[in-house]
């Protein structure tokens, strides 16, 4: 029996339970989603968007389905589980529902974390969401998050993904983001799970006019990680920045796939992704910038820089431009290199042992991505997390309350 069929069978078994706990707006998409998944199946390596990640392997395995029912206790935060009004209006409106992994998530998601910031509201303190995977057996979870910023609202969110138990975890997550006209969103995602974890994360953002969206994804620990980030610029004069850094070693696999769609004129997009892959790890980055016909005066720059350390490590990089307008300024570039041996030797001459010298160089390389984070305390904390990662400190995870 193939892996896709297992999920169809699982759906048949759990459909009623899911329908009974989840809100209507989510249930309304469920059957359609499983049909899409059944029709397409898990994407093979022949599918362009998934050519670097073997989904058959990632989704194989015997997982217990966790049907989550979360509670939110923070009283003053703009977060609730299942905001019906928001769901009715926006659920499934940003993400590509024909994507098989999104479809799978839509079929199995049982609740949606909803974050809503109203017109002209500025949430002063950054909102932090820590996701701790806990289970006594191998478990899969399908998570859904909806973030809506109304006109001129602003918010900074840090999402921290961790795992507290040594089980196999399979997680799919879909984050839909609506950034209204004049809105300002900073969204940070940090993965610090472990080698038994598989995470398929999709972030889909619709951006209105005059808005600013910054996304920064930091992958430090994990097993198989896939991050799909799609941004649709739908209003003029908006600016989007996608940054990310990856530190992968052992048998880690980290695949990032970004698409920025300039659908209207006069928007700006920036991308900077940096990977360090060591030992037997594999990294992949595919970044597409699409400029629609008539989206004049688009400005876009995309950079992907990578360091391959281990002789058995692999890095795939694929920046792409697809431009249907003539008055645009777009650039892209990617590099794969080694650690600077001259710098390593200089440090060793000063007495710094090779491993520490390596660590300083990697930190400097990756740290550039963290330096772009405007909020100073957050920036410092992330620098510390990267430093700990490089020090090989697996036992504690810097941020989450569980480890403090």
């Amino acid at each position, binding site marked *: 029996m193939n892996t896709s069929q297992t999920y169809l069978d699982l759906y048949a078994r759990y459909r009623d339970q899911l329908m009974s706990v989840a809100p209507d707006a989510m249930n309304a998409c469920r059957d359609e989603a499983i049909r899409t998944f059944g029709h397409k199946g898990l994407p093979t390596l022949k599918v362009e968007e998934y050519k670097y990640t073997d989904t058959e392997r990632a989704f194989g395995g015997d997982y217990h389905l966790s049907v989550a029912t979360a509670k939110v206790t923070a009283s003053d935060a703009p977060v609730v589980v299942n905001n019906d009004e928001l769901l009715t209006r926006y659920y499934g409106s940003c993400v590509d529902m024909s994507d098989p992994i999104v479809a799978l998530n839509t079929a199995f998601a049982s609740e949606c974390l909803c974050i809503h910031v109203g017109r002209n509201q500025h949430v002063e303190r950054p909102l932090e969401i820590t996701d701790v995977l806990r289970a006594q057996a191998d478990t899969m979870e399908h998570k859904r998050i909806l973030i809506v910023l109304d006109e001129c609202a602003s918010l900074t969110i840090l999402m921290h993904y961790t795992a507290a138990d040594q089980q196999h975890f399979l997680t799919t997550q879909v984050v839909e983001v609506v950034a209204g006209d004049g809105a300002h969103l900073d969204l940070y995602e940090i993965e610090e799970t472990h080698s038994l974890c598989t995470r398929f994360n999709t972030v889909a953002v619709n951006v209105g006019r005059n808005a600013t969206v910054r996304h920064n994804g930091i992958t430090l620990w994990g097993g198989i990680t896939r991050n799909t980030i799609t941004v649709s610029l739908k209003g003029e004069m908006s600016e989007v920045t996608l940054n990310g850094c990856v530190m992968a070693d052992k048998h880690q696999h980290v695949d990032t796939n970004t698409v920025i769609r300039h659908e209207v004129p006069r928007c700006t997009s920036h991308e900077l992704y940096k990977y360090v892959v060591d030992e037997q790890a594999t990294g992949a980055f595919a970044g597409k910038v699409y400029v629609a016909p008539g989206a004049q005066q688009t400005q876009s720059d995309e950079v992907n820089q990578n360091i391959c350390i281990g002789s058995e490590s692999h890095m795939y990089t694929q920046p792409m431009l697809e431009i249907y307008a003539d008055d645009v300024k777009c650039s892209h570039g990617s590099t794969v290199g080694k650690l600077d041996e001259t710098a390593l030797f200089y440090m060793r001459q*000063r*007495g710094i*042992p090779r491993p520490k010298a390596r660590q300083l160089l990697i930190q400097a390389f990756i740290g550039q991505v963290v330096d772009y984070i405007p909020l100073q305390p957050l920036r410092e904390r992330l620098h510390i997390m990267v430093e700990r990662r490089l020090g090989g400190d697996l036992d504690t995870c810097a941020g989450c309350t569980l480890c403090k």
Partner: protein
Amino acid sequence: MLEIRNLHARVEGKEILKGVDLTIRDGEIHALMGTNGAGKSTLSNVIVGHPKYEVTEGSITFDGLDLLKMSPEERSHAGIFMSFQLPVEIPGVSMTNFMRAAVNARREALGEEPLKSTDFLRLMRDTQKLVDIDKRLVSRSVNEGFSGGEKKRNEIFQMAMLQPTFCILDETDSGLDVDALRVVAEGFNKLRNEKTSAMVITHYQRLLDYIRPDIVHVLLDGRIVKTAGPELAREIEERGFDWIRP
């Protein structure tokens, strides 16, 4: 004491050092002169253990230690310091983190506790004054965007921080203006004590007016072909190398 015996070394398959003998006793300053490409920097790199340079024959001992068996960092911990002819830029690594790692690695190797943060920062400040280096330079990334002269000054700053017992100055004078040359040379002299020895590589007498050598060697085509007192440097300044060639 540094003792080099019949040293042969290759880089990229090409033999550069063809039998170098050199003894530098504690407290002595030796100047090493010679034509471009003669092998002076190669000799320096071999002493500090650069992995690109392959020793094919001979030995180097330092205070009784077999240097050729030691890693570059161990040689550094033993007290050997090289001021690079071309100091390396390391973007993103701050001078502070770089020096802290270096100072503490050395302390650890010597069985000492790492310096407390406040003590370390005080050491940075004091040393900065001693060698008269702009504190803005010290707050930047290692050598990044430094001018040629600033880089050389930074080498002396690092030397002062690490207090080595044997120093190699590889053309530390090149790129320095007249005033900077004096400051750097005086900085070096301040750091010396009666045990400190050095190998000073230069093409010009003017550095040796400040850092006075006990002995001057001429290295040509991978061999030391002449050794004499300080007057040899003056003679080379006047007459060049042709008269020395064997």
